[in-house]
């Protein structure tokens, strides 16, 4: 019988003991945080769809560190920095999540798949109720995306990194992932984690902002349901194909996102049930699951020890807070323009976390007046927010990343 060493047998513990105390402490912290995410996700405090796979990924990857050679420690989950055909060929055979990471994550495909699913479950018709008003709200709800950019630069981030973290203010997680992959590849893991972490908190935090900034009598304004036009599927398809094509023409760098979103919308409106079920079910939830799992697995101790992470946590929170305030300002602007008939709570839905912020708006209006039904307008503002966010990402990426001719 060979000689058995306890630490050789249990390598997760051995690597913890042998590593730098700071790394060991970070691993323990992340394991605890991962378990907390699973618990809070299962309880419904945080978004379960993303937090449960992310939490289990975080706990597992930080526990499962082993000796890859006599002196090298690592895991057999993912090697995010592997590049070059030879190295990639090796890691694809060793790391079990590497194929999903390499072929869907690092090229932004997973963000596009999520967008196809969102398109397939979104009714674009809500935007056609009052397109200009919804777009005014959506633009003001980008306040955080805008103001965070110079603040981040002032705090020492490069333009690309500052733009990537500022995009958290769009509250559109696939958009954040896509932008950070293109603008700040080194920081895309912490930025995307910050985005998903905060977005899952918007459902709990934004209602307080609404109550703080909008008095109860305005929150309870009833919207005239008779102004909602009956929009046919053909009209929605016409709108989608024209808008999608024009936006692709203007911003080719964001064309994959535009195409993915509008193909989902068109499939839905064309009534191709098999594709709607596929995109809105399997593709959307499958992508969200693997997105959560991969983000968790990428959250290793080294990530949290990056000094920029604290800064990113602050800037992400600031971006979302300012976007929420901006959205409410937009709600007030439209309230005044409309002769005080528009419920300003709809402004919060301009922050394009589909459909969470629209639900928040409806919930708050209903709490103030049980006859207030604002969801169609709130969904319109939300969908407009997706479009304005994609436009902003397109401009940032074109200016900061794409080489000039």
């Amino acid at each position, binding site marked *: 019988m060979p000689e058995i060493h306890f630490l050789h047998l249990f390598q997760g513990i051995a690597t913890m003991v042998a590593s730098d105390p700071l790394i060991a402490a970070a691993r323990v912290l992340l394991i605890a945080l991962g378990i907390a995410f699973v618990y809070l996700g299962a309880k419904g405090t945080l978004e379960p769809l993303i937090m449960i796979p992310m939490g289990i990924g975080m706990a597992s990857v930080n526990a499962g560190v082993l000796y890859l050679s006599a002196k090298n420690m690592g895991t057999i989950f993912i090697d995010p920095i592997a590049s070059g055909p030879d190295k990639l060929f090796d890691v694809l055979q060793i790391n079990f999540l590497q194929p999903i990471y390499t072929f869907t994550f690092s090229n932004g495909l997973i963000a596009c798949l999520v967008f196809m699913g969102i398109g397939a479950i979104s009714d674009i018709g809500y935007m056609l109720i009052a397109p200009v008003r919804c777009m005014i709200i959506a633009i003001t709800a980008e306040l955080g995306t805008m103001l965070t950019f110079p603040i981040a630069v002032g705090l020492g981030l490069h*333009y690309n990194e500052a733009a990537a973290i500022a995009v958290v203010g769009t509250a559109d997680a696939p958009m954040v992932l896509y932008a950070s992959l293109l603008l700040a590849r080194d920081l895309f893991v912490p930025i995307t984690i910050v985005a998903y972490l905060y977005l899952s908190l918007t459902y709990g935090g934004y209602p307080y902002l609404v109550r703080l900034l909008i008095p109860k009598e305005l929150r309870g304004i009833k919207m005239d349901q008779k102004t909602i036009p009956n929009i046919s599927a053909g009209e929605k398809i016409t709108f989608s194909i024209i808008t999608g094509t024009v936006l692709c023409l203007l911003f080719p760098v964001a064309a994959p996102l535009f195409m993915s979103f509008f193909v989902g919308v068109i499939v839905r409106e064309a009534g191709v049930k098999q594709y709607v079920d596929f995109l809105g079910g399997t593709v959307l939830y499958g992508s969200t699951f693997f997105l959560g799992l991969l983000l968790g697995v990428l959250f290793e101790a080294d990530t949290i020890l990056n000094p920029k992470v604290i800064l990113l946590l602050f800037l992400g929170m600031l971006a979302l807070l300012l976007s929420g305030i901006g959205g409410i300002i937009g709600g007030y602007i439209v309230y005044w323009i409309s002769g005080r008939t528009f419920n300003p709570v709809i402004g919060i839905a301009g922050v394009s976390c589909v459909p969470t912020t629209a639900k928040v708006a409806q919930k708050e209006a209903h709490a103030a007046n049980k006859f207030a039904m604002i969801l169609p307008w709130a969904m319109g503002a939300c969908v407009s927010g997706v479009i304005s966010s994609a436009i902003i990402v397109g401009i940032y990426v074109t200016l900061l990343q794409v080489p000039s001719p």
Partner: protein
Amino acid sequence: MESFWGAVKLMLFVYALAAAISLITAWMIKYIFVVIRMQKSHAEASKSAKAGTSPTQGGAAPKSTA
């Protein structure tokens, strides 16, 4: 500090451009919608004319109360 003011200028440019494109998109949507509606009503009017009734008469036909 110079890069901060550069970032402020860039932010203002990006915001203005995004706002302009977003609003143009919204107006475009609005007018596509108006045009489609007009075409629809024209089509209905010509259909009614071919049938020998005015569009108003056709649209206001009494519904069965049964």
